[in-house]
């Protein structure tokens, strides 16, 4: 399988107030999306714990997209600012773990931006397809296989 044929799979964390509504709007508008994404709803993007992201990548998913309200529009006043800082730091840590930082992305989608949601997930699909399979997962799977059963 060449990297261009690779079908990636990723998870999208959407906040309840803006981006989940934006994702709903993409559906209501019948925008056709790649079937690679799984949306998980959280109340605020700031709930997304960095450990979840690493867990997702270690379990074999190819990427994580976090979507929040636009800066200044967070339902919880400043949650998305925390998310922004947290993701910036996490991306540095991912390099240390041997994961391409591009596998984790953060963006803003308002309740009226169904088209932007569609664009972002298509873009993410293409970029992950370029990157190919998540090597950390493959490496860990190999290590698990080689480990003698106790």
């Amino acid at each position, binding site marked *: 399988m060449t990297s261009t044929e690779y079908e990636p799979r990723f998870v999208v964390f959407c906040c309840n107030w803006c981006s*989940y509504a934006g994702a*709903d709007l993409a559906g209501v508008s019948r925008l056709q*999306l790649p079937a690679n994404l799984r949306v998980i709803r959280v109340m605020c993007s*700031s709930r997304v714990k960095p450990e*979840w992201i690493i867990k997702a990548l270690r379990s074999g998913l190819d990427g994580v997209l976090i979507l929040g309200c636009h800066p200044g529009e967070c339902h919880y006043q400043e949650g998305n600012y925390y998310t922004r800082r947290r993701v910036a730091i996490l991306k540095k840590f991912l390099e240390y773990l041997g994961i391409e930082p591009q596998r984790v992305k953060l963006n803003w989608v308002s309740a009226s931006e169904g088209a932007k949601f569609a664009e972002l997930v298509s873009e993410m699909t293409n970029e992950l397809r370029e990157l190919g399979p998540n090597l950390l997962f493959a490496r860990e799977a190999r290590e698990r296989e080689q480990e003698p059963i106790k």
Partner: protein
Amino acid sequence: MQKIRIGVFICHCGSNIASAVDVVDVVEYSKGLPYVIHAETNLYTCSPEGLRSIKNSIEQYHLNRVVVASCTPRTHEALFRDTCEEAGVNRYLFEFVNIREHCSWVHLHRKEAATAKANELVRMGVAKVSLLEPQDCMMVPIHPSSLIIGGGISGMTAALNLANQGFEVHLVEQETELGGLLKGLNRLLPTNEDAQEFLDSVVKKVKNHRRIKTHLPAKVSQVSGYVGNFEVGIQEGNNETQYQIGTIIVATGAQVFQPNRGDFGYAKMANVITQLELEERFRQGTETGQNVVMINCVGARIPERFYCSTFCCSTAIKNGILIKEQNPAAKVHILYRELMAYGIEYENAYQKALQLGVRFIRYNLENPPQIVGNGRATAVKVYDELFGQEMEIPLDLVVLTTPLVSYAENSLTSRILKVPLTEDGFFLEAHLKLRPTEFATEGIYVCGTARWPSSVGDCVAQAYAASAKAAILMRKGFAAVEPITAFVNEAICAGCGNCSLVCPFDAVAVQLQKGRRIAVVTPAKCKGCGSCAAVCPSGAMQQKGFTDQQMIAMLDAITEGD
């Protein structure tokens, strides 16, 4: 502990889901998932039959957890939670799986991929529901007072409706007078009544009502708190006063689009005016001239402003009729692109205009009308799309029909209230059909042209709807707040205080208990963002309904089937 018994209900949603997802396959798949005792499809799970089937299945199979895979939790979650509760299952042992907006509708012609994805989404939902715990709703009192932002016809109607039911109303208007857009109008469709007489009677009622406190010119400077218990700062001049408010209605209105200087000669030729300026002339009694040409859709339904403002065609029809009634010899041409005269009254007005001899000429955007004249418009050249020929119409007056556009200030109001706007800057309701005058945020409502261009009649209807919704809440006197608050596992809390640093609502504090530093959550203040749980190094801080364990189970479930 009781053994987990899950029921999974897969909705066809008519053909909305079933046409793109093989729902029978999803049911068969669900039956093989851990703890799933029963799975079935429903034509419409939200219909009375669907809900009855959930209840019957709970009883028959002794279910204690329910998963519904259908549309979006944003509209139907409360309904299914109620159903669970009625059948004796705690309302928070329910999980919603969205296989319509997030699956069938976005993968319309890829049944295989959509079905595989739906299976996976259900697997994630089942993984989460098995880890959910029963919760109790938190009841909060609702203060019987309402803040209404905007003193136009919508705001005033809502204010009167609430005040007449005995609620205290604070009506905030940024201008020095009440009335909004209605102040500039001449006559109102479809009744043809005098706009100013109608407005005066409403303003008088508002001003004389003992339960309405009118603040003008004033602004809402800040809003904090939550449903039933908002703290609102109202700024009048240099004074800011705080009020305790139960519900908020956004009725900030919209403005009439002003054509750019030079568009169809506007602001360069004295005899090119807008419909609003024409209404002003009617009120002054100024002559409108023998030959009048109206051009519709000026600044509307163009690439940079795509929407139809809905009632401007009717405005042109209304004013065309007035001109013909005053002077039957006058010639009135209305150049239109598509004619929107919805509802029987506006259709009747259109028929009346035709009978009186108002001429309608259809133009298209590729061949817009050209004004002829130097310093003063003397004629218009227009390509009649239906006739297939260009014609030149002599004229004394050009009237441009322009749409309503949103106020730039809406973005500030939207930030203060944390409610969304559309891409055109109007306020975005929770759901176009199911919750048309509510926001997703409980206790905040919207009506009138703040929401979308609407006629006066529609604004009044929306104002009644929004205020009725507010009144329901205030009459009940309490509201259930979702138990999505943070909680602490005291045994592993190290008292580091990260949580209290990130809490925007001051809901978490580190306290000394039995000689140990421990984070303590005040649930009434917690709004459930979960930020504190994300920064807890030990995992002691969690969020109800979104615990680390539940979320990681969902993530694991994605790849489990591989």
